[in-house]
């Protein structure tokens, strides 16, 4: 049963499941903050900022392909809402590199290793699916707690 006071939620990608849906090998887990009511607006502007940083001439405007829109939105979600993860690549540490504990952890999409591009897409998609359950009020058929 979920904690009603939770302010974070976990998503998991790349897990291996058998034909019954049971997890055989656990995947990578990412803990995110639950967005506020401003989510739609702030993630949109952050995605525009991601596109501007990646290609300054674009000035953050949409390109004609859906990939850049989806990718920039996933990067924006990671930069804005990631709390912790079981992998270190979101903090700019590539495979084989050693974490430098004297530097502050920071999520910067420009430092994501290129081999995790598909993971960025998967995280964005899983985040959007998971966050929908916080966007709609639940119905317990018991009215409000204060009524």
């Amino acid at each position, binding site marked *: 049963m979920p904690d009603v006071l939770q302010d974070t939620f976990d998503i998991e990608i790349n897990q291996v499941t058998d034909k019954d849906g049971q997890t055989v090998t656990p995947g990578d*887990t990412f803990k995110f903050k639950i967005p506020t009511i401003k989510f739609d607006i702030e993630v949109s502007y952050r995605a525009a900022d991601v596109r501007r940083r990646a290609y300054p001439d674009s000035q953050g405007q949409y390109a004609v392909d859906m990939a850049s829109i989806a990718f920039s939105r996933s990067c924006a979600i990671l930069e804005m809402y990631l709390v*912790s*993860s*079981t992998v*270190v690549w979101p*903090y700019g540490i590539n495979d084989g590199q050693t*974490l430098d504990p004297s530097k502050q952890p920071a999520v910067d999409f420009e430092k994501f290793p290129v081999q995790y591009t598909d993971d960025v897409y998967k995280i964005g998609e899983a985040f959007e699916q998971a966050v929908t359950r916080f966007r709609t009020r639940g119905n317990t058929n018991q009215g409000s707690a204060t009524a």
Partner: protein
Amino acid sequence: MAAIDDPEKYSFVRGGVQTNTNPGAGTRAKWTQVLMGKALTNFMWVSGIATGNRAAAAYRAKQRQGKLQPGFSRGGKPIPMKDPNAGANDQG
């Protein structure tokens, strides 16, 4: 004179900087907050914090057993006391 009038006398602030703190420790602590699972375990192992925690736990265990007393070694064994008068007559 109150501490508010002369903070450098009554605190560890020197030139506006807290001297008895380690900023690197704060940075390492932030990494423990943003990592979880295998990444956190690996980080703790690499940075030696887990080793430090084990040493601290061993120290506390010895403390509970009363082995950290004068006359006992760090391993908890009694140290054989030397006779302070031994060889005193050899001087003369």
